């Protein structure tokens, strides 16, 4: 593998990480803590929305993020041909 390819693969990985970690931060620290009061003006079923993000929603998003990461990295491994046999 050439150093350029290597750098491209790593760069793509870092971009993916950045996007996913921004979402990770936004749903928990953002909607669940910092913006919880304005969010609570809305509701989801019987949940105030900010409260829902803090006690339910963020956890569901966390699960989704890991599977999105795993699937995207598998694609990336194939594209750059660095996956395991």
């Amino acid at each position, binding site marked *: 593998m050439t150093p350029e390819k290597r750098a491209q693969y790593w760069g793509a990985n870092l971009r993916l990480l950045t996007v996913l*970690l921004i979402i990770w931060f936004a749903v*928990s620290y953002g909607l669940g*803590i910092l913006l919880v009061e304005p969010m609570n003006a809305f509701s989801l*079923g*019987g949940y105030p929305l900010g409260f829902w993000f*803090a006690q339910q929603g963020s956890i569901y998003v*966390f699960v989704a993020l890991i599977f999105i990461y*795993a699937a995207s990295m598998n694609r990336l491994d194939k594209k750059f041909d660095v996956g395991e046999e």
Partner: protein
Amino acid sequence: MTALEIWTYGIVGLTFATYIGIAIWARARTTGDFYVAGGGVHPVANGMATAADWMSAASFISMAGMIAFGGYGGSVFLMGWTGGYVLLALLLAPYLRKFGKFTVPEFIGDRYYSQTARVVAVICLILASVTYVIGQMTGIGVAFSRFLGVSYEMGIIVGMGIVAIYAILGGMKGITYTQIAQYVVLIFAYTVPAVFISLNLTGNPLPQIGLGSEYARDGVASGMTLLGKLDQVVTDLGFKEYTTQVMGSSLNMFVYTLSLMIGTAGLPHVIIRFFTVPKVRDARYSAGWALVFIAILYTTAPAVGAMARLNLMDTIQIGPVGSETGNLVYDERPDWFKRWETTGLLKFEDKNNDGRIQYYDDQNAEFASKAEQEWGWKGNEMVTVNNDIMVLANPEIAQLPAWVIALVVAGGLAAALSTAAGLLLAISSSISHDLLKGVFIPKISEKAELLAGRLAMIGAIVLAGYLGLNPPGFAAGTVAIAFGLAASSIFPALMMGIFAKRMNSLGAVAGMIAGITVTLLYVFQHKGIFFVKGTEFLMPELGMGPDWFFGISPNAFGAVGALVNFVVAAVVSKLAAPPPEHIQHLVEDVRIPRGSGTATGH
């Protein structure tokens, strides 16, 4: 024997027999078996084992209670103890799996080409893991002594004996397969009562939906949401509104959540579980599966907390607040109340001698003075309502059958045993593999190392048992401290090892020492030096009162320690040369999945 005791002995006995059966079947024959279960664990199976490894007595027994009384503020535990898996999956697990060795200090030692770094990592690991294991031991002792009619000491000895059988015989292999069984036990035990209670209060069997549904006790519609009802019930008695009650301040919640997340990702007993899967891609998916299995409990917990709180309030406040017959007559209290009074977890004191129970927030000055003038209340009479009661007594409060209560006992024991076993393996492998083979006798034969691993395991079990029998008086706070230590020392060292190619040995060691020192100092300042009462050294006259650092509580301080670690490491690393060429190659290599074999010790 009562029916409850028969059920409890039956179910707990059955689960213990299963664990021993697995131990005999999954014996370790090589060091690979002992440290990483041979490296061939299916990612879903590993996810399940990780979930049990992770969810401790604190998650199972205490967390719902912390949410019940913390309300919205309890969210820090929910987000903090799950969000860490995102960090673990994205930033550590796949790369460490690619590195393909047996222990966490081994990565730190190799990456920073330094025995010093490895030994510092071993010390951080042992500090974090030993403090964590004490909490599991006390959990086991408490579960035995309350439900099985044996003494606390006997409980710990029996629990230790069970762990010893499968951890010594099977190492990681035995632990992995028992953890899978333990996950099944604990998740049933947690969700079954929650489903019953959710059905009872909202008519919806899914607690996650029930918590956001209409309050309809026994099918009678109320026109109010369950959370709305709970908010009303608690504020009527002067308590803070459930859905908006914060823990300390927004900043404290932010930092606390961050500390728990970073700490979760840095706990060695969780990280080593990802060394057991065959491939890098398995490590990625396995973290996702682990979080699925964890999320089943963690999304149920807030419903358990809120519903148990509502049930408790309704049991005591039986009529309108302030009316003459609005409060439960003490002599008419239910049986579970009496049972839990004998354990000291519930305590009543009739302050105004009216024979009825007044349970309200007497710290709320305005409400307390109104209650005294208008109704003659002389203070909150429920002087103790322990957090743990919310899970342990929950089935009884909801009048569920005896087998459900027995299941909860088996579940609590499974949670404590599975976590204890994982921690004990992390401790014993760091001793036999990192210290003995890594530092003292590098030429040790595989057979001798396997024996050393087993001996280290025995030593770790004896130490954990001893600390469980003689808890150092700070047992309750210890789990939180373990997170602070892992967050401030291990997580930054691992992350920089992967993402900062220029990070060198000097920077990493300085960072770890600075991070753990700052965290320990802040904790000791609040809770005493090594938790010895009377040695606290808060200095209010110098502006160092309780939570002096921006109102951050000591349990939430790990994130600050981690920040110190990162900054010190970055600055100090500039003082020395970049790592040698072969180390930079090693970093390049862990960043790419191709070429991962099974984990090896060489």
